[in-house]
């Protein structure tokens, strides 16, 4: 045996008994997470199917009521996506599915440019056109653009123009099909996920990354607290529908419902019940900001009192991020690598 291996073996023997306990908790946590995420994916499947139906109904019989229905169906489906958005491993990695659901960030406004290209072209927009058109076309931001963008809604191509309806209904169908695929593949992934111990850290890191993105890219940057220091509502997601902060709420609820139970199970198995409770309480603190903070980002950045509400939300999310990414991660022994998360 090589010396390095021998050293590792000695360390391993010393830790065997505690490892057995940890391993049981790890498996339980993965079972917990798998089931919770399955529920999240199932909800996404239901909501995207309803969105697809609502888009078709609206385009077949465009009325004020059917328009309202498709807009609210879009929001329901997008919220369902926000709740599972933290999952960045497993079947969602196949075919860039996460990007297909939500192409973001979009600093070059590719969504609008791609829509313009497709709508100015006379060719029929079919499901295969959507499949071939790339991630900027295939998901929620494209549908949001067609439904909510002010310029789009006052132009020649505004809904329910037939060509625009073709685009909307086929994108909605694409998202619904992807959701069903994701649900099926997540189910098939179960045994591999539960048996493979590496997925404990992968899952914990997924939540950590989601919190970091939430704090830094979805709040601090648009608020002008980082980056170039300027307030900018247009770099966050769902700004066209004015739902940026509602989607923040959805992400937090998703983490609380689908991620937190497995995390606290692990913490409690390591006798970190106090920390587990502090994290639970902090999730509640974040949620206490709503519905007050459920406003368009543009409004939140313009008026002082609303900005203060936003600041309150930001502080609470920062504290939550710190509890999970620093304290819980250290307690469980998970580190997000500088190089391992880089991809080169």
């Amino acid at each position, binding site marked *: 045996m*090589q*010396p*390095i*291996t021998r*050293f*590792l073996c000695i360390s391993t023997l010393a830790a065997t008994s505690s490892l057995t306990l940890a391993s049981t908790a790890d498996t339980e946590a993965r079972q917990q997470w798998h089931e919770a995420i399955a529920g999240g994916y199932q909800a996404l499947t239901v909501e995207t199917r309803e969105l697809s139906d609502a888009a078709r109904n609206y385009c077949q019989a465009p009325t004020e009521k059917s328009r309202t229905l498709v807009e609210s169906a879009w929001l329901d489906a997008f919220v369902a996506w926000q709740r599972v958005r933290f999952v960045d491993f497993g079947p969602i990695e*196949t*075919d*860039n599915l996460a*990007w297909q659901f939500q192409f973001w*960030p979009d*600093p*070059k406004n*590719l969504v609008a440019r791609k829509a313009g290209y497709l709508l100015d072209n006379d060719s029929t927009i079919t499901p295969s056109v959507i499949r071939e058109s*790339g*991630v*900027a076309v295939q998901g929620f931001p494209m549908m949001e653009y067609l439904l909510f963008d002010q310029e789009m809604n006052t132009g020649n191509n505004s809904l329910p123009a037939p060509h625009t309806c073709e685009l909307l209904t086929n994108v909605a169908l694409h998202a619904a099909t992807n959701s069903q695929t994701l649900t099926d593949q997540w189910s098939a992934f179960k045994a*591999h996920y539960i048996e*493979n111990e*590496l997925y404990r850290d992968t899952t914990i890191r997924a939540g950590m990354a989601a919190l970091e993105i939430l704090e830094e890219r979805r709040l601090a940057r648009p608020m002008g607290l980082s980056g170039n220091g300027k307030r900018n509502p247009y770099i966050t997601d769902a700004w066209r529908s004015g739902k940026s902060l509602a989607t923040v709420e959805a992400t937090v609820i998703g983490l609380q419902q689908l991620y937190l139970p497995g995390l606290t199970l692990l913490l409690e198995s390591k006798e970190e019940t106090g920390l587990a409770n502090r994290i639970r309480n902090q999730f509640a603190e974040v949620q206490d900001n709503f519905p007050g903070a459920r406003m368009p980002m543009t409004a939140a950045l313009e008026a002082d009192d609303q900005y203060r509400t936003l600041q309150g939300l930001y502080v609470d999310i920062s504290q939550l991020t710190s509890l999970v990414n620093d304290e819980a991660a250290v307690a469980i022994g998970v*580190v997000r*690598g*500088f*190089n*391992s998360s*880089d*991809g*080169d």
Partner: protein
Amino acid sequence: MPQNRRAFLKTTAASSLAVCLTGCSLLPRKATGQPEHYAGAIGLPDGRFGVSAFNRSGDILWQAPVESRCHSGCNRPDHSELLIFERRPGWSFYVFDASTGDRKHHVKAEPGEHFVGHGVFSPDGRWLYVTASRYEPGEGIVAVYDAHRNYQRADTFDLAGVGPHELTLHPDGETLVIGLGGILTHPDYDRLKLNLDTMQPALLLMNRRSGDIVGRFQPDHHQQSARHVNVGGNGRVYVAYQYQGPRYETPPLLARLEDGKLREYRFDQDTQKALANYIASVVAHPENDLVAAASPVGGTIVVFRGSTGELVSRASIPDCAGVQALTGGDFLVSSGRGRLVQVGAGKPAREIATLPVYWDHHLV
């Protein structure tokens, strides 16, 4: 001294003191020769990025700030210049005085192009070869710069493929060895991989004067992205892959060019799993038959014999990525958690030093 550099040094001065060699001995010299010091791109806990150089005593020689995260670099032969390239998509590279850390040049990418993090010099230190991408058509290129003329662009060599990454110079002094990852990306789409079904990765050999491709060798599987390359003292060419298929598959991740083909190395299943389908650096030791490869995703470093593929060492080093060959036959490994560890055959991994910086991918 520019204000930002002063501020950077001020806030990192305390951390510099934290470096310490474990034990009393000096770190061995680099097996590849001069310069005596080591350098690498770094991240700092406060989110800023820089470049750091340290000597064989483990003392920080200098730290310099950079505008965005960097990846790897190269030393200019017979000149005290260290070049560091921005991380993909890299919009510039930096030329530092290797002794002081003073910035001498900041060279921007040509319009429509971005760098990918790596470059290498001709033996006389005049011509700099940099892997790059023309991102609209998605064409991989080698951009050639003339160091005698303040790093003006001198030539462009097409690679007839997408996603070049690391390149190095063969000991013959004439042949560039290039890892063509095969993955199409575009700066508008973040780091999204746009062609996983149709990738065509390859190990390329290119005549550095004419730009002619004199060899193109494809891995067994089209999703074995051939990113990193190295050449041993005996001229043996090694390539390391990052597999783009599902995690439950564990294909070979390392290969050596033999008889016009890539001979792929496969370790035991436990080791394959520990490498997590991702190698960030491969270095063939110039003094012996050993090859080291680091996986930050798996937190694992392996050392194996190039001739037989026999695994001689494996150690767990979280977030390890940078590797340098040391005189005497060992390797120095850096990690994103600030650690510097010496590894070799037949001995335990030895912690050399720890710094409160994140060592980025490659040690230079």
